[in-house]
């Protein structure tokens, strides 16, 4: 199949991976990265095939936002891991200790 189809399929699969995970928060983050990667492949292929020159800056913008996203996600992970020792998602409750 063409490359765009595979990447679209991968993007939705990663979205599923973000929304369904068992315990570790980091698996959600990993699937997030995968989604971004697949999106990052789709966009330049589409641009180059259809000769949309003016849109060519979008992948770079996407990359910047992806970096911020990943940094934020990792910092949240670190905070949770600092207080609880692990990144189990069951730990995120309203208990104040």
């Amino acid at each position, binding site marked *: 199949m063409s490359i765009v189809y595979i990447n679209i399929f991968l993007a939705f699969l990663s*979205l*599923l991976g*973000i*929304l*369904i*995970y*068992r315990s570790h928060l980091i698996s*959600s983050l990993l699937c997030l990265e995968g989604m971004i990667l697949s999106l990052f492949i789709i966009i330049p292929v589409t641009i180059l095939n259809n000769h949309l020159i003016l849109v060519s800056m979008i992948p770079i913008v996407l990359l910047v936002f992806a970096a911020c996203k990943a940094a934020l996600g990792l910092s949240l992970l670190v905070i949770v891991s600092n207080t609880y020792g692990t990144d189990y*998602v069951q730990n*995120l*409750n*309203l208990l104040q200790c």
Partner: protein
Amino acid sequence: MNMFASCMITALILLILPIMLSFTKLYKNKLYPQYVKTTTSYAFMITMIPTMMFIYSGQEMIISNWHWITIQTMKLSMSFKLDYFSMIFVPVALFVTWSIMEFSMWYMHSDPYINRFFKYLLMFLITMMILVTANNMFQLFIGWEGVGIMSFLLIGWWYGRTDANTAALQAVLYNRVGDVGFMITMAWFLLNLNTWDFQQIFLTSNNNLDLPLFGLLLAATGKSAQFGLHPWLPSAMEGPTPVSALLHSSTMVVAGVFLLIRFHPLLEQSQTIQTLTLCLGAITTLFTAICALTQNDIKKIVAFSTSSQLGLMIVTIGINQPYLAFLHICTHAFFKAMLFMCSGSIIHSLNDEQDIRKMGGLFKTLPFTTSSLIIGSLALTGMPFLTGFYSKDLIIETANTSNTNAWALLITLVATSLTAAYSTRIMFFTLLGQPRFTPMILINENNPLLINSIKRLLIGSVFAGYVISHSITPTTIPQMTMPHYLKMTALAVTILGFILALELNLTMQGLKFNQPSYYFKFSNLLGYYPIIMHRLTPKTSLTMSQSSASMLLDSIWLESVLPKSISYFQMKSSTLISNQKGLIKLYFLSFMITMLLSLMILNYHG
């Protein structure tokens, strides 16, 4: 006519002579104070000649000596105005100064720098003469600043004492604030009337005069210790008693009133400024009379009494009676200087004790001082046919019968009765009863210097009112007819004050002193005015400048505005609105199921 000018100039030069001779060996002489005193007495006798010529003929004179400078279109020259006000004030001031110099020969005789003291007193007298005889504002300003500087030097005479230095600095600062008003007036006259000469000012002034008159009022507030700029006068009692007698009772503090009197043709035209003057004087006289009621230092009580009488003079100017105010200046000089000299005699005899709670029983031991203190207090309160009566009673009568501010009038009457109250308090505590001072003191008032000086002022306190008011040319017509209750008002409130104070003092004599009430504290701490003004205002401005300099840029704009405010806001709002339980997997699952469902429905629908 020739004698007029030459006598005045002779007297003025005579006063300068000991100052000029201070560079010679005469200054080191032990008899220098004696020379200064006799110089002053000769100057007094010489100035009596022009005064009597003026009273007889009614002719005024302006001596314009030396053309100093012409700036563009304004001509400044040295000129002396010898008119009604200066001709009568100069002999009075010289007489009082002569007595005070003789008194200070006794009071300061153990001071090693007595020659310098007399030189300062004489320099003060010269600058006061310059102020009084000035014909243009520039010369008046020279005299004005001169008396301010000499006041500073004389208040801080015992400069080893911190309180004296603080008081001197306080006097200079408050006078400076008043000088700003003087500057405003001078600048306005320069810009609008192109002159600083009094004659041209009075001729050509017909526009709105509120600003220069307000400047003059501010200058008078600073120099004559009206309410708002008044704390320096009680603090000025740190200086020696002759200084208090000369500067801060008879001569310097009336400079502000004298300035307003000089400009009375302008003051008559502005109703606003007259009302302002009246209310300011009324507030001053009442406030300082209240403060005088609970002071314990005898000099401070007399200082507040001075301040109250100055307020009365300003009230008189406010009801458009400059000549009455001037008469009060002249009569007030006599008994106020004598009151200070009597308190100086008491202080020196009791070995430098100034607290009236530690005096008492001086009635039999200091008979001459006692009688002069009582006569001075009676003259102050306006006992009929003593000196104070001729000016003070006229003022109260005129105020009662004029179309004026009723509140200011009422306050003035209350202050008149309080005058009697604190005078009774002084007499009761210092003279009557059993002695409360330590017994190992030699009380001796038998010095001829002391006795003669007080005797001269005593005769003045009794007779000068009669002599002056029957010798001068009639100026404004006094009110001849009034209802009998208005005529008796001043006397009635004074007697009321006397009786009330005497009753209270006698009744409370043996009782225990209970905790001070709020009214006592208000009166004793001078209405909290010095405490607030000297501390709160500088602290506020310093704190504001410190916070704007160091905190405004760094800690607010760089730190707090975006970073810290965002995080603070987010934390606050998230704790406020969080009612979730953190079931992340559930939320994600529901999101995924919703998406799948929507995709399937859209697929099969389309």
